[in-house]
């Protein structure tokens, strides 16, 4: 009698293990899928933002200021380009980081605190590490869409408004990848921070105003970084936006850049991404164990 019970218990356990195997193996993608599907709730905001922002910023800032700045801009390598050409890569990278800022802030707090769906994932065979990676991938999908849209737009914009194309097609597409990397470099540390927030006291408003804004304004976005005095220029040196923008200028309009500088920019962005990711994983694991 007892042996029969044991056997059926074993059978049940085996069956449970079998059912758990798939989510165990593919958990990361299930989580990413959830994040992307949840975006449909504000899908039109994404589309309008992805299309509207580049159009407005390029027409408003780049073309308007270009009317005042008629002399070519001399960038860090000594190459002279028109003002619009100079600004376009920076605006693309800004868009990547801005979308990352949106996706890696409140939605993460949401998953832990308000709608608590991360605890739901955690109650299934999906591990905290998979949840972290899944959230990262899901959000990255939106960054990718935003950057690719921006890329296509400035490509067309260059064809229509510029005598010379804004984008060098052979290497230009690499800027899309750099955009995603730039998004991670700012987004992954932000995700780690968001995962540690227990009480919403307007922290993200402060991040927006005291980190994102200065980074956007002092990263050589609208003029070469060396126009700034040294006491402001350091903001650019440590900001992922400046490193991403420098890479963007290299790949988008083919600015000559030392291979060493390319390696340094990429290494810095990778470093920020990895440190942010590792910290985020730790915060996720700790908080989901509570």
């Amino acid at each position, binding site marked *: 009698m007892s042996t029969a019970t044991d056997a059926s218990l074993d059978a049940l356990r085996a069956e449970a293990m079998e059912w758990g195997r798939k989510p165990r193996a593919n958990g990361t993608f299930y989580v990413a899928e959830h994040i992307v599907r949840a975006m449909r709730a504000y899908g039109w905001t994404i589309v309008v933002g992805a299309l509207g922002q580049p159009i407005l*910023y390029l027409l408003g*800032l780049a073309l308007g200021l270009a009317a*005042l700045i008629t002399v070519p801009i001399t960038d860090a390598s000594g190459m002279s380009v028109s003002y619009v050409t100079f600004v376009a890569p920076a605006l693309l990278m800004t868009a990547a980081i801005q979308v990352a800022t949106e996706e890696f802030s409140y939605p993460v707090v949401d998953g832990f605190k308000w709608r608590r769906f991360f605890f739901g994932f955690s109650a299934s065979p999906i591990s905290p590490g998979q949840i972290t990676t899944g959230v990262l991938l899901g959000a990255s999908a939106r960054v990718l869409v935003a950057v690719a849209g921006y890329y296509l737009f400035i490509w067309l914009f260059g064809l229509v408004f510029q005598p010379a194309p804004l984008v060098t097609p052979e290497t230009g597409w690499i800027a899309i990848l750099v955009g995603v990397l730039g998004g991670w470099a700012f987004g992954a540390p932000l995700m780690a921070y968001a995962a540690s927030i227990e009480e919403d*006291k307007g922290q993200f408003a402060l991040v927006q105003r*005291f980190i994102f*804004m200065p980074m956007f*304004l002092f990263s050589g976005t*609208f*003029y070469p970084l060396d126009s700034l*005095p040294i006491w402001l220029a350091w903001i650019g040196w440590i900001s992922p936006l400046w490193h991403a923008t420098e890479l963007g200028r290299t790949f988008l309009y083919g600015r000559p850049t030392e291979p060493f500088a390319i390696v340094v920019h990429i290494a810095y962005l990778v470093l920020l991404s990895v440190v942010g990711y590792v910290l985020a994983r730790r915060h996720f694991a700790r908080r989901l164990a509570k």
Partner: protein
Amino acid sequence: MTTTVETSAHLRSGGVRALYAGNPGAVVQRGLVAARSSSWVVVLSGFFEPVFYLASFGIGLGVLIGDVQTSTGVEVPYAAFIAPALLAVSAMNGAIYDSTWNVFFKMNYGKLYEGMLATSLGPLDVALGEIVYALLRGLVYASGFLVIMQVWGLNLSWTAILALPAVLLIAFGFASLGMAVTSYMKVFQQMDLINFVLLPMFLFSATFYPITVYPEWVQAIVQALPLWHGVELVRGLTTGALYPGMLWHVLYYVVMIGVGLIFTTKRLRALFLG
């Protein structure tokens, strides 16, 4: 006995009396008390946004651009050109933020206005009170920014001090209209629409460069929008290039305030007292 009946009948018999109890101060006071419990760092941080823009564009782009001609033909340094515009923009942003996001949450989640309107306060008291509270905050930001302009030598005339009442006028206009628009919003994703209206206005309203760079028909659109009038008004005052046409800018805002107030009061009455 008869007198009491008469008085109360008189107090509540339609017209302005039904809308206004003469006590918007109570709503302002409530705002100030509530502000004490919210994070002051977040409130204070709103002041820094125009300062960062001024530092970045004034220092970095100033080198590339040099002097710029204002609409009255005066040549001013680039930083002195954008500073008054940023002042007008921050008045707009502050007023819109307070009268849309804050009001939206109080209206739909806090159910604050239902409570207020259940007292002797009328919809016009609530509208005026909320707007005056938003103006107080705007006044603090604007004063701080004007001090910074003074320190950096960007106030080119004594008339710059008149920028303070001008900023209040601008904020009043946006706040009264913003509150009316908010009363139509049902879910908070719709609030993104507001940004979608503000961003192009911010970028195109002669903020960073004179609007003469545009073709005529674009200029006409820009000139129809409220921010351009605010920018021109404040720029005239801080650069000291006064001209009689500035009264049109003032009139624009007076009309906007009137329309906004009537609109908001009607909406509040329809929503809560209907």
